[in-house]
């Protein structure tokens, strides 16, 4: 990868890197509080790289959950990456296995959102720039969470604000992706389903179910509209 690719990747992911500073600090603090050493936090942030997942590890370790139940929870919490990885591969054809290994490890909500927006709206966006952006984000997460684990409990940041950083980012990413009426309907369906499912089943798997069902609604609607276009053309 060239220097220019690293630089362009950096410019497009800077908002994610900055958002990871408060979030990573808070996560490192939370993990340190329940007994994870700074070294283990670095290793965890490198190998696991999942914001919400790592907060969940801290929370579940604190209540004394068994390793197997924690690992299972993390698996279900992050199973949405399956959908993201599938959605990204069409833009990443013809790369080496090493590329896919590193790219896969750096798929998170924030890098996925950033790259999907770039791939769909910026014709100059390439797999290498996307990978560079991902690695920058990963680096920011590792350093921030490590710093958090070093600081320990000394800083007092309102958690409501810290948690809202990503929510604000996700809202902005959502708005940028509302490319058509069908996308808007899919988004609204996902919203309603996610709320109902969260109330009913009280588990984070609700996000995946909502996304799968809402995308199917989008697909059915778009093919219906496609049929409509065709019949109009035939007339």
């Amino acid at each position, binding site marked *: 990868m060239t220097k220019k690719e690293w630089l362009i990747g950096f410019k497009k992911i800077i908002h994610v890197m900055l958002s990871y500073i408060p979030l990573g600090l808070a996560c490192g603090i939370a993990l340190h509080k329940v007994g994870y050493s700074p070294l283990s936090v670095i290793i965890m942030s490198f190998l696991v790289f999942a914001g919400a997942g790592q907060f969940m590890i801290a929370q579940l370790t604190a209540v004394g959950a068994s390793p197997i139940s924690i690992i299972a929870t993390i698996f279900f919490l992050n199973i949405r990456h399956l959908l993201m990885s599938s959605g990204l591969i069409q833009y990443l054809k013809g790369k080496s296995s090493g590329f896919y290994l590193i790219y896969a490890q750096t798929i998170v*909500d924030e890098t996925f*959102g950033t790259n999907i927006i770039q791939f769909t709206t910026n014709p100059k966006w390439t797999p290498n720039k996307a990978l560079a952006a991902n690695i920058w984000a990963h680096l920011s997460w590792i350093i921030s969470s490590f710093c958090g684990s070093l600081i320990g409990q000394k800083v007092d940041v309102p958690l*409501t604000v810290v948690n809202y950083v990503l929510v604000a980012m996700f809202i*902005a990413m959502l708005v940028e992706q509302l490319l058509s009426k069908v996308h808007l309907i899919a988004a609204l369906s996902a919203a309603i389903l996610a709320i109902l499912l969260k109330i009913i089943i009280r588990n984070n798997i609700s996000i995946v179910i909502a996304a799968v069902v809402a995308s199917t609604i*989008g697909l059915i609607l778009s093919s219906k509209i496609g049929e409509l276009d065709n019949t109009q053309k035939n007339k």
Partner: protein
Amino acid sequence: MTIDKWIIILGSAIATFIPRIVPMLFFKNKEMPPLLTKWLSFIPVAIFSALVFSDVVFWKDSFNLNPIINIKLFPSIIVFFAAYKTKNIFISMLIGILAISLMLFAV
């Protein structure tokens, strides 16, 4: 640090890597069926919408539409319009963080 914690770290590493890598390795040399590609084109909006709404309309894990208690509601509406107007994720985030800080301070 106990051995349990290392097991948690390594186990979570494997558990998070599998969903990330499997689709890539499966589809890297294969053409995806057009219907699947079309379906996947709705996944980003659907996921982000699900992520956003399963957060902002809940306060302390219960559904709550009272903007005085659930202080995420007003800032979220502001971020939505900021993103729509500016088309800039970073500026929209800053506006949102400022808004929630003000709400936290005011309520």
